């Protein structure tokens, strides 16, 4: 069953809660960037916000922004987060160390679970419906989206917020750095083409998508389907795309662009290069992690970028990894995490 992306909102290392990145992207050069944050007082009063960590405030702000103008019931909130409220978790663990496991701050303890995010959003939106959280590292959002689509298919829900939320603390950045997750040198835009070294640069993402069954004037695009795969070969990916094209009622030649999660890391990018160049040798490729950085929630921005391109009917030059600008009608979003968890989705206008 196709569903519609009615709206989307993002807080990331680009300007928050807007699509300035489409026309005026902030091009970063470095290894580690934290979110550009909006004024949270617009979304939650300071007394309520004082116990919330930054990720919770971002999640709430992006969820409320995605719901602007929406006044129908909300049936579900599904969240994807790799690390959960890791900043608060760190505070709690450090307090345990400092205080000898005595006199621990309860607020930090309460927020040290991954599903705090979805439950807090539900509380503030007064949504008593389906609420689930998926924590599968870089495939967390993809799994959350798959769950929402299954709930639509089962007829359990008619609307859903699907969210991706991850933050990157200095401590976690350093831990990832030790296992070569980040580039040793500052990442520059040109490194995304023909990556020769491992590692990417760190960003943060809080993104929310409002899904519904009916198309409206504000709908961004249609989501024809999504397939998740584990360690697939090219044949399995081809089969998944066949399935999606069938669901969308189109053929291979109708695909106008493929969104890929190129992140400037050699082994990561080789997978996209090999797979997509083989499956779609003459189709434009869109990249997005040069704008939003790498994080466990980053794959959500691939969907976000595709949805906005479809709504606006154009692909700006700064998003084109390969090929010529086209007026897109059908875009495939292809993500993988460490060449294990793969996902492919078809979005159409």
């Amino acid at each position: 069953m196709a569903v519609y992306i009615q709206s989307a909102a993002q807080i990331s290392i680009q300007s928050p809660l807007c699509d300035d990145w489409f026309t005026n992207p902030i091009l970063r050069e470095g290894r580690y960037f934290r979110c550009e944050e909006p004024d949270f007082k617009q979304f939650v009063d300071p007394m309520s916000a004082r116990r919330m960590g930054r990720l919770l405030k971002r999640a709430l702000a992006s969820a409320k922004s995605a719901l602007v103008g929406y006044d129908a019931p909300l049936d579900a909130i599904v969240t994807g987060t790799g690390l959960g409220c890791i900043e608060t978790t760190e505070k709690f663990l450090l307090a345990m160390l400092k205080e000898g496991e005595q006199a621990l701050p309860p607020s930090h303890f309460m927020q040290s679970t991954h599903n705090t995010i979805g439950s807090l959003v539900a509380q503030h939106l007064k949504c008593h419906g389906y609420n689930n959280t998926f924590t599968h590292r870089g495939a967390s959002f993809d799994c959350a989206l798959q769950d929402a689509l299954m709930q639509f298919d089962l007829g359990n829900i008619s609307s859903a917020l699907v969210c991706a939320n991850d933050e990157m603390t200095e401590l976690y950045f350093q831990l990832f750095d030790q296992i070569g997750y980040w580039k040793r040198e500052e990442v520059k835009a040109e490194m995304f083409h023909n990556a020769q070294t491992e590692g990417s640069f760190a960003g943060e993402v809080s993104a929310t998508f409002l899904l519904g069954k009916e198309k409206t004037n504000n709908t961004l695009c249609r989501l024809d389907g999504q397939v998740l795969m584990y360690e697939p070969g090219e044949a399995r990916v081809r089969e998944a795309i066949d399935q999606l094209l069938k669901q969308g009622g189109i053929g291979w030649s109708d695909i106008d662009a493929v969104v890929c999660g190129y992140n400037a890391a050699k082994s990561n990018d080789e997978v996209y290069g090999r797979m997509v160049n083989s499956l779609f040798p003459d189709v434009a490729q869109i990249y997005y992690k040069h704008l939003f950085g790498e994080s466990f929630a980053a794959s959500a921005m691939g969907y976000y970028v595709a949805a906005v391109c479809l709504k606006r009917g154009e692909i700006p030059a700064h998003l084109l990894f390969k090929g010529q600008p086209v007026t897109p009608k059908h875009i495939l979003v292809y993500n993988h995490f460490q060449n294990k968890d793969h996902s492919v989705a078809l979005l159409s206008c």
Partner: protein
Amino acid sequence: MSELIENLKNEVIEALNLEGMSAAEIDENAPLFNGGDPTAPGLGLDSIDALELIVLMERNYGIKLKNASEGKDIFKSIATMAEYISKNRTK
């Protein structure tokens, strides 16, 4: 006592993350809790804040509250907290 009250105000601001509030803005005799009535005077703290205050007293002053029913009187205001701390502190 006035020094303890001043310190306590700052510790409460930090522990409860009362952003934008200064010690001078807290009346030591005003109620800390207002029973959920936003129009009532005081800081308007809630039950989770009460837990934070219990932790604060243990961590900073070595006081372990053993009788929960005492809490209502101890946490009436900053002044009552300071009085209890001055009599029972172990550090």
